[in-house]
């Protein structure tokens, strides 16, 4: 099962992960990563924008690619858009597989691609001022691991 969603409001990862796990009887393991908005360095809010015609289709293609490449039973991929406060989940990726290694690698793969090859633009608010975030060189290096 591939379940990919863009969410416009706060969400609780467990409410998606539980049903996702239960949808795959016979699985060996589920690896999950949840990323949250960090409040460090005085960040007051974070805004993610997307481009409707590309963002969700791109995520669906990425999830399908991960399922095929790592032989998964399923992948859950949730991503917030809009304005978020520190402590709110931004992203949740789960992979269900027969074996642990495949589940781990698939989530790692998906996260690297979500970070630097999916159609999201991020800006942060500090002291009332919004600043756009550029991708870091490290993000491209992470991505290159999968070539």
């Amino acid at each position, binding site marked *: 099962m591939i379940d990919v969603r863009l969410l416009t409001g706060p969400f609780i990862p467990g409410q998606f992960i539980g049903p996702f796990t239960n949808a795959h009887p016979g699985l060996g393991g589920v690896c999950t990563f949840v*990323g949250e908005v960090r409040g460090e360095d005085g960040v007051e809010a974070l805004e*993610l*924008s997307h*481009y409707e*015609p*590309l963002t969700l289709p791109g995520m669906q293609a990425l999830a399908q690619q991960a399922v095929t490449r790592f032989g998964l039973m399923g992948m859950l991929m949730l*991503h917030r858009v809009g304005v978020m406060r520190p402590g709110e989940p*931004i*992203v949740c990726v789960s992979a269900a597989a027969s074996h642990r290694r495949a589940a781990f690698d698939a989530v790692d793969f998906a*996260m690297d691609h*979500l*970070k*630097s*090859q*999916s*159609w*999201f*633009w*991020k*800006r942060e608010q500090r002291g009332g001022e919004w600043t*756009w*975030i*550029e*991708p870091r060189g490290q*993000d491209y290096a992470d991505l290159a691991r999968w070539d």
Partner: protein
Amino acid sequence: MSARLVFLGRLGDLVSGGELAVAPGPLADVLAALEPQLALALADERVRHALNGQLLARETAIELAAGDELAFLPPVSGG
């Protein structure tokens, strides 16, 4: 009837509302008619294009027809 330019990410800050209606035609002509500062930002080689929701290969020659939507996509930063 005009074509529509859509500006994503930091490019959206350069134009009120993040969109602009323009006269159809080759992209070079469209850009030449914009404010120089905006045209310069859009000409950044890292900016990708999507025409009517389809991502274009880099260096694709773009000709806007009436009703087209051309999106300007700066480098992404998700996750």
